[in-house]
Every structure is written in structure tokens, then in C-alpha cells.
């Protein structure tokens, strides 16, 4: 009997259901874990994702043929049963469970084990084979509890406001940006870059609880908003767009900020370690919780992480994918900065 899931040059494929999961080349039928651009790509015939993920995906991909499914709802496709389970990565993100005759495989997509109060909280899904990301699969990556980091960001914002200068924070426009605005104690106006505002408006309309935000428009600058928190995509930091807040203090919120060298390379004084991915302990505990014997790692520090898993007794392998372009180390984001 063929493997439940196979790895092809178009993406992860289920022969018995004739569908792909997060494919990177056009396919007839795609199951999508979440709306980031390296997982939800253009050109597929049919899209299936959670109801919560659908609006952002439609917004980003335009006119597509797509349908939604509820978390936990089962759907028969060909000879297999599929269901979507919260991944805790961004609002609407899911792990995809595929079952055939009692054999269960789970594709993690991107995930984060700590609940952030906005994205549907990660739930471990027992399985025989777990296909997991490992973006931060090295023991140097260990996150502080979210409450602590949010308090640090609040204190930074307050200190800047006291000096009469705006605070600009770089954060991915879908997920991280909203997580920040929801998690930071309100203490002044929150301004947004257009890319952030569009996604925020969509999520707000879906019922996610987000504070009021103001899109930055012509005529708004450091003078008009001297104590604002400005949330912008990382590529906008240091750009012509950001220059209107000429005296602002800039910071970047990313898991990569855990490494001092990466923060200094971006010539940033301030970096907050906020990631939408699992840290070292999160990856290990998530994998343990699935009870899986077979683990495939897809993107991140795959080589050392696979070896580590093998030494822990897992049947572990590496799968080459095209994921991980969304939150690369400064290398890719810098080119556009």
C-alpha cells in the first residue's frame, strides 16, 4: 500500500485523497494550513482551509475557488479522512490531520505552542507520523513567556513616549502585527502601515478582538503623533515611508532577535524576541505530545534537528520543501528593507 503522504517536487501529496498540502507549484486541489505566502500560493484549482483562515487567503490571492472547514470537522476525500486542528501560529492556522484505516499523519504547517490570546491555541494531535517545521530547531532559541515580552515592549513604548518620540516596531503584517496590538497594554494611539491595516481590518471583521488602529496617511508624522506606536512590516523599517517619523525609535519583533549578531546586522538597537514559531522546547514538547514514531522535518535547522530527534529514538527524516521564506533571518528581509 502506498504511503499515506508522499513528498513530491510540487509539495506534500496524498495519493489516496489526490490532494496536496501547502503545495508550492500549481495543483488541482490544495489543503492550506495558513495564509502566509510560503504556504498559501497562487494558481491552485481548489483551496481548502479553515473558515478562520479563508478571508485573509482570499484577500491575498484574489479570485480563487476556495472553501472553508471548521476546526475538528472531518471530511472524507477519496479514501482518506482529513481534519484541521489549531496550530497557534496565526489566526486561522491549522495542522492538517490525514487518516486512513486508523493510520494517522499530521502536517504541522507552522506552529507555536504558547497560547498568544489571539490565534486559536495549539492542540497536540496524536499521530503515527508527524511532519513538522523546525524554523527555530536549535537550543539557543528559547522564548520568554509572552506576558514578559509584551511588558518589555510596553515599557519601551512608554519610555519613548515620555521623550516625545514615536515607537516604530517591525512585525509581519499578518499575525505578528495583530498579536502585538492585542498583547501590548494600551497607552496611546496605534498607527499602522497600510499592509498591516488591511489584514487587521479583515481579522477585526471576522470577530478577532483587536484594539482601534489608525492607518498612516499623508500628513501624519512624528509631530502629529509624537507618542504613537507604529506597527509596520519589517521592510518598512528605515525606508522612505518611515522617515516621516524621523525621530522615532525603531525596533523589530522576531524570533531571530534572540541572536545578538542578527539584531546588530540590522543596525537595530532594540529587538524583541517574539516569534510565531515554536522554540526549541516547544518543538520538542509538541513532537513528544503527538506520540509519533516517525517525524519528518520540513524547514528550519533541519540537519541538526533531525539528528537530535534520531538520537532521541525517533525515526526521523528531512523533507525538502519551499517553506520558510516568510520569516527568514535578516538575509531575505533585508534585501527589501
Amino acid at each position: 500500500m502506498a504511503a499515506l503522504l508522499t513528498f513530491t517536487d510540487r509539495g506534500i501529496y496524498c495519493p489516496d485523497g489526490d490532494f496536496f498540502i501547502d503545495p508550492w507549484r500549481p495543483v488541482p486541489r490544495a489543503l492550506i494550513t495558513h495564509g502566509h505566502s510560503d504556504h498559501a500560493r497562487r494558481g491552485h484549482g481548489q483551496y481548502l482551509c479553515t473558515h478562520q483562515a479563508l478571508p485573509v487567503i482570499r484577500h491575498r490571492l484574489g479570485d480563487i475557488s476556495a472553501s472553508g472547514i471548521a476546526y475538528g470537522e472531518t471530511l472524507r476525500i477519496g479514501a482518506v479522512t482529513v481534519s484541521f486542528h489549531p496550530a497557534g501560529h496565526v489566526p486561522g492556522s491549522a495542522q492538517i490531520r490525514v487518516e486512513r484505516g486508523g493510520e494517522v499523519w499530521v502536517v504541522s504547517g507552522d506552529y507555536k505552542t504558547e497560547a498568544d490570546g489571539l490565534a486559536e491555541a495549539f492542540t497536540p494531535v496524536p499521530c503515527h507520523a508527524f511532519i513538522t517545521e523546525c524554523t527555530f530547531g536549535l537550543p539557543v532559541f528559547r522564548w520568554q513567556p509572552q506576558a514578559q515580552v509584551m511588558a518589555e515592549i510596553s515599557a519601551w513604548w512608554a519610555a519613548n513616549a515620555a521623550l516625545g518620540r514615536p515607537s516604530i516596531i517591525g512585525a509581519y503584517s499578518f499575525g505578528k502585527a495583530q498579536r502585538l496590538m492585542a498583547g501590548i497594554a494600551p497607552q496611546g494611539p496605534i498607527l499602522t502601515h497600510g499592509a498591516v491595516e488591511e489584514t487587521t481590518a479583515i481579522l477585526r471583521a471576522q470577530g478577532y478582538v483587536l484594539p482601534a488602529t489608525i492607518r498612516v496617511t499623508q500628513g501624519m508624522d512624528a509631530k502629529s503623533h509624537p507618542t504613537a506606536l507604529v506597527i509596520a512590516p519589517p521592510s518598512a523599517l528605515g525606508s522612505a515611508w518611515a522617515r516621516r517619523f524621523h525621530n522615532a525609535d525603531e525596533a523589530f519583533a522576531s524570533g531571530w532577535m534572540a541572536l545578538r549578531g542578527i539584531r546588530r546586522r540590522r543596525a537595530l538597537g532594540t529587538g524583541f524576541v517574539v516569534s510565531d514559531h515554536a522554540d526549541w522546547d516547544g518543538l520538542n514538547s509538541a513532537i513528544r505530545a503527538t506520540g509519533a514514531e516517525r517525524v519528518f522535518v520540513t524547514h528550519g535547522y533541519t540537519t541538526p534537528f533531525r539528528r537530535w530527534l534520531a538520537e532521541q529514538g525517533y525515526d526521523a527524516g528531512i523533507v525538502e520543501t519551499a517553506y520558510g521564506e516568510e520569516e527568514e533571518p535578516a538575509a531575505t528581509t533585508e534585501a527589501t528593507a
Partner: protein
Amino acid sequence: MKAFAALFAALDGTTRTTAKLAALAQYFRTAPEADRLWTIALLSGRRPKRSVNATELCTWAAEAAHLPLWLFEESYAIAGDLAETIALILPPPTTTTDRSLTETITLLTSLTGKPPEVRRAAILTAWSELAPTERFLFNKLLTGGFRMGVSQGLMTRALATATGVDEPTIAHRLMGDWSPLTTTFAALTAGSDDTGAGSRPYPFALAAQLEGTPDALGDPADWNAEWKWDGIRGQLVHRTGAFALWSRGEELVTDRFPEFAPLADFLPQGTVIDGEILAWGAGKPLPFAQLQPRIGRKTVPKKLLLDAPARLLAYDLLEEDGLDRRPLPYAQRRARLAALIDRLPPTLPLGLSPDIPFTDWAELTRLRTTSRSGMAEGLMLKRASSPYHLGRKRGDWWKWKIDPWSVDAVMIYAQSGHGRRANLFTDFTFALRDGNDLVPFTKAYSGLTDAEFAEITRWVGKNTLERFGPVRRVTPELVFEIAFEGIQASPRHKSGIALRFPRMARWRRDKGVDEIDTLDSLRALLNAAQG
């Protein structure tokens, strides 16, 4: 360590100079005196004696974190900094300590020479007591090499702000081989300026790079020209009871140049000379490489003294008869220097770096092209009326280097950088063509923009042929123009050639591996350089 960690966090958390200055000045006003002193020492590159080595640290940290050593090493390769890697992978502290910076350093110093198990126990205990930033700094004390984004100039300004003593005085006091064990904060910062006790050198005046031609400098009559030598910048100090030779890096190198010892018998006391240390033969400088064997060793073998005797070419007089002469105009200092050297026996290894007479800039421009034949790497231009500045002040001293040599070469190995360049491939090995082979001939790390390094990093990811630890062998495809200042025969290198100051002048995207230069073309340059 807490106050020191807070200072570090403040310095590291900003790129604004004003904020750094304020944080430092505040610290220098409030921290315990001993801690201030150690902080100055650390920020100016002085560090406590090493009590443990890197291998021990890696092993102990991996054990404490319950991780296999290979995974620790993989993590280190990514983080790019040993102290940081250890701070990040260790489990959170189980207790706390109020030990000060000075007490911590005293503890570390006391471990020197102790059996490994004693040192291991002490280090593991310290790790379990320190919060992450403190732990990182503690590890930096162990591994050396503090870089906190604070220049010597910034620290000097902060000290001046905190103490009210003027900057030049502070800058001078910070020179030399003082250590927190031999001085006090008060001695470093109190009182007015003097010529300096004992062997203390003056801060070196530094030249700025002249781009283009010197026409904009005005009337040539206002300027003096000298050759720019390719040796070791040195300051010779002779005072009562003190005879010292300092390198530009404030390293005491007196013992590496025993041939200068007779100068102590002939130079008047209270004399400080700024000049260039060169290996010397047949009336002219030898290539820099002949000086290099001296740098790494404590004692100098006889053969080296015979083959490549050192000579100091003096270009400035900073102290005369115990008086600080730095405020005098350059022309006057030079005249006094010339007179001083004139009175010395000609057999001494000390000469005047000659003035190059010229009447107009066109003539000087022509003279500059003859630099290499005189073993110089260009010209120095100094304004006749200028004082001996503190550090680098643009406008009065210019270095006008000759254009470098260059060859086009292909990248064959890439390695990721450290610190700011962690996670980015920045250290490359280059090869030239030799018949059908590619022969590695140099490494280079600098010269490209961050964006180019980022692009090459992505390219390396997709074009790796083999991995040797952190080193990747890559498809020989990317061609770079490698610029360098000097060339030397070297039996230690596979290519038989060693380059001086190699760097990437540009990425030649327009060239393929078929168009790179040959090893023969480099050998021709070598022959030309030696001829």
C-alpha cells in the same frame, strides 16, 4: 554584575550615541569605584587573565544544558559567539548573586592554575546564579574580547562628562599598560595633564584617507609630504627609568625589537618619538612579511635579527626634554626631531622618515606613482601648521595610498561570519586558475555590502558541494575582483604566494569562471614587486 549588566543592556539596546554617552556617564558617576575602573579596562580592550579555555567552556556548557557536544557546536556555529551561545543554551538560573563586577573578576582570577574540577565547579555555580545578560557578560570575561559598541573616544567623552576632567587628559591617561590591579580610578581621572608617568605613550594621531587628488587641500607650500610606510606604527618612549616601544594597538613591543635597546643610551630622557617600525636591508625597507615573524613571538631568534633587522623611521616628536610638544606646529616638531636625530650616531637603528620636497600637486602626483619602488604604499600629507591631534581629526593629516593591485578570482569555499555577521556567509576562499586546476590563494572577508553578503548567503545555500563543519565547498562560479596592497613569496601557502590586505573590491557578476586570472599572472606581479 547587575549594574554592569544594566549598563551593557543600555548600551546594547540603542544605536544612538547620545543615549550611550548618557548611560556611560551615569555609570561612571554611580558605580562602585573598583567596578568603574574595571569597566574602563574592559572597554579599552584590557581583560582579566584567562582562567579557562574555550574547549572547557564548550564541554561544561553542553553538560550543564544536557545537550550533546555536537549540538552545542552547531548552535555555536549559528549564533557565532561562544559567550552568547553558552548564555542562551543553559537552563534558567536557579538562584541569584549580588557579586559585583570586580568581585566576579577576582573570583575568576583566583581560578587560574587550579585543577579542572575546581574551575568547572566554580564556573557551573556562577552560571546557575546569573540572569541571561549577566551570564553573557560573565562568559565574555572568560573568553575575552569585549565589544559593546563603545569606541575609545566615546568612553573618553563619558569619563570627561562624569569627572569634569578634559578629554585629552583622559585620553592620554588611558594609554599604556595600566591595569586595574596597578592603578585607581582617581589616578586615571584626577588632576591636570602631564607628560605621563613612566612609559605611558600618547594617543596616536591618525590620518584620514584622501580620495581623489590633493588639489582641494590648497597651497602646496602649506603642506609636507612623506612616504607612507608599510610597517608597524610605533611610539618610542624614553623617560627616567622607562624605555618602551608601543605599537599602535597599545601593545608593549619593546622586547620584540631588541635592536632598539641602544637607543636608551643615546636618546635624551624625556623623549617620545612617533614613527614606523620597518624591517630594513640594504638601505631600504624590506617587505612587511619580514616583520611579521616578530609579532607572534616573545623572544626573537638571532637569525631573524640578522636577516631582517628593525629600524625606526621617525616622523614626529611628541615629547622633548620632558615637555609635551604636541601643541607645536608640525613644521617645528619636525625641525626639532631632525635636529635630535642629527646629534645621534648614524649607526643607531633610528632615522628620519624623509621629507619629500615638491612644488606643486602635479609633481607630487607623479612622485606618488613611484611609491612601490621605494617600498612605500603611498604618501602622507601633513599640514605644516597642525598640532599633533588626538586620534583621527579630518583636515590636517591625510594618507594618500597608491591604487591596490587586483586579480579576478573565483570563490571556492565559504564560511559564515561571527558576531554581527553570524548566520551570513562572509568569509570566502578564492582560487586562481593553474592549468586545469583551481589553486586557492587567498581568503577575504570584507568589501561587499550587507545586501551582497545576503545574496551570496542564499546562493551558498543552493550551491554547496560539501560541508566541513562550518565551511562549505561551493560550485566555483562566483567571480570577485580581489584587491591587495602587497605580495610576497610564501612557502607556507599552496599557491606559493601571500597577499597583504586582500579584500573583495567588487563582485564581478559580468565574469564567469573561465575569465579569472591565472596563478602565473600573480607570479608575474610577485616578480615585478621583487624586481
